[in-house]
């Protein structure tokens, strides 16, 4: 808004100058009578100068205010994120003692029972779930502040490892660019990138029953990795929400998950100055695209 106003002010000034020249050329000897005599070209020039001054100074004030609002918003977002991190640390901390007590006493109960007991196992499974959830939240908060251990990462090797870890080679079609050149190593935190790609491929396997494709390309300075599945998809209105912490899609409730995986992937990718894009059609499948810039990571 302030930018357009600024251009408008400049426009008024230019028009004023041109107009005064035109008037001077068309009416070279005309003077206007206002109780005093004035050259109409000068009059137009003075008026437009005044107008453009008012417009441009308003622009400057508006831009200054915008900047102040931006700074305040940034501070507020930062403070909110910091508060959220502190909350998660406190929550994690406060849950650990009761969880330890539950786990230890369950061991004691089980020993007392002299073996397997379905009820004890159920409680243990729920305690484990809670444990995994708090650990996941904690890890998510740590991802913001953790120092990246940057090294050259061989993508093909990394994606092979993802396939190996998920132990479903028959369902994963790997398609990695080798011609006319192979993908160069990218500067990044190997462990974090492994975690991100494993999460994406794991999601694709979990929410579909057929094969999935894992594609990698090197195009115009970027590394593009796509994970494509033909599963249930994400409802369009939920696409912006699925990367939020603890959000789980409305069509996946019967599948176990923490609702933290995609948030983690997004944070890892953004710490590598990249982007995660999700495209999906309900009932058709999902394409998760990771774009990582080579140059920016090298120059960071």
């Amino acid at each position, binding site marked *: 808004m302030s930018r357009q106003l600024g251009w408008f002010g400049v426009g008024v000034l230019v028009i004023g100058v041109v107009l005064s020249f035109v008037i001077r050329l068309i009416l070279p000897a005309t003077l206007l009578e206002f109780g005093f005599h004035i050259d109409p070209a000068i009059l137009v020039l003075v008026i437009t100068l005044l107008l453009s001054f008012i417009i441009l100074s308003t622009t400057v004030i508006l831009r200054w205010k915008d900047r102040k609002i931006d700074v305040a918003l940034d501070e507020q977002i930062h403070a909110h994120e910091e508060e959220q991190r502190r909350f998660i640390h406190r929550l994690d901390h406060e849950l*650990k003692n009761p969880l330890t007590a539950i786990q*230890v006493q369950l*061991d004691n109960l089980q020993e007392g029972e002299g073996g397997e007991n379905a009820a004890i196992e159920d409680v243990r499974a729920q305690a484990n779930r809670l444990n995994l959830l708090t650990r996941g939240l904690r890890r998510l908060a740590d991802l913001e502040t953790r120092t990246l*251990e940057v090294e050259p990462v061989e993508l093909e090797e990394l994606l092979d490892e993802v396939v190996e870890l998920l132990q479903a080679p028959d369902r994963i079609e790997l398609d990695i660019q080798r011609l006319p050149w192979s993908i160069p190593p990218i500067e990044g935190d190997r*462990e974090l990138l492994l975690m991100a790609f*494993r999460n994406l491929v794991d999601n694709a396997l979990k929410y579909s029953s057929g094969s999935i494709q894992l594609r990698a390309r090197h195009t115009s300075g970027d590394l593009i990795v796509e994970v494509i599945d033909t599963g249930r998809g994400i409802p369009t209105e939920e696409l912006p929400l699925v990367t939020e912490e603890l959000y789980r899609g409305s069509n996946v409730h019967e599948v176990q998950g923490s609702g933290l995986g995609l948030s983690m992937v997004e944070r890892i990718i953004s710490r590598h100055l990249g982007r995660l894009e999700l495209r999906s059609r309900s009932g058709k499948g999902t394409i998760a695209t990771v774009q990582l810039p080579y140059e920016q990571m090298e120059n960071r």
Partner: protein
Amino acid sequence: MDEQDEVTILVVDDEDAIRSGLAAALRRARFQVVEASNGLKALELVEKHRPDVIVLDILMPEMDGREVCRRLRQSEDWTPVIMLTQIDATGEKISSLEEGADDYLNKPFDSYELIARIKALLRRQVVAGRPVQLAASLVSGRLRLERETHRIWLDGDELTLTTKAFGVLAHLMSRPNMVVSREQLLDHVWGWDDPSGMRTVDVRIAEIRRKLGDTASEPEFIETIAGEGYRFIGDVKAG
């Protein structure tokens, strides 16, 4: 009589439910158990019962676990200590070890894991004096490692390792002849236990072996224990 009947464990935690639960589990495993609910009481009980292993919570009223450990080590008491940490950050674990703890366990844990760690500590050869994990530099034959400066030498030639590989080597060398699982290495060096990290540990072990000219088939320094983890097999002395 079982050998463990002779072993006394001091359990120190201000949470009644954890302390009593752990005590019951340890008694069932045939250890003698004494309990303390704070650091000051713990120091008294160390004097009175001379425990073989101390299981020590960090955050406690009156005197915290780190201070207890510091005081024990200052008075040249090298009773093995397992610290119960609550904070996942790697720094917290490292500082526990720097205070003189022999091992640490992240809450929440199950009692079987604690018993396994206690047994591992008891199996470790007891050497009088300062344990190697507190030494600033470690020497094993032709290998020398300086913990603070992150430098290593083989036959006097300096080698370069990535930060993580150095962390793995330092952790293994600090526990000579003890099997350290991939989970423990991941937890200690990387600070988290994501399952995708298991392979990562192997990658760093391969890096260490490559630099040291060591092999998995005929190891001089690091031995792979199938299904369990890794073990540093050389004798380690404080340098």
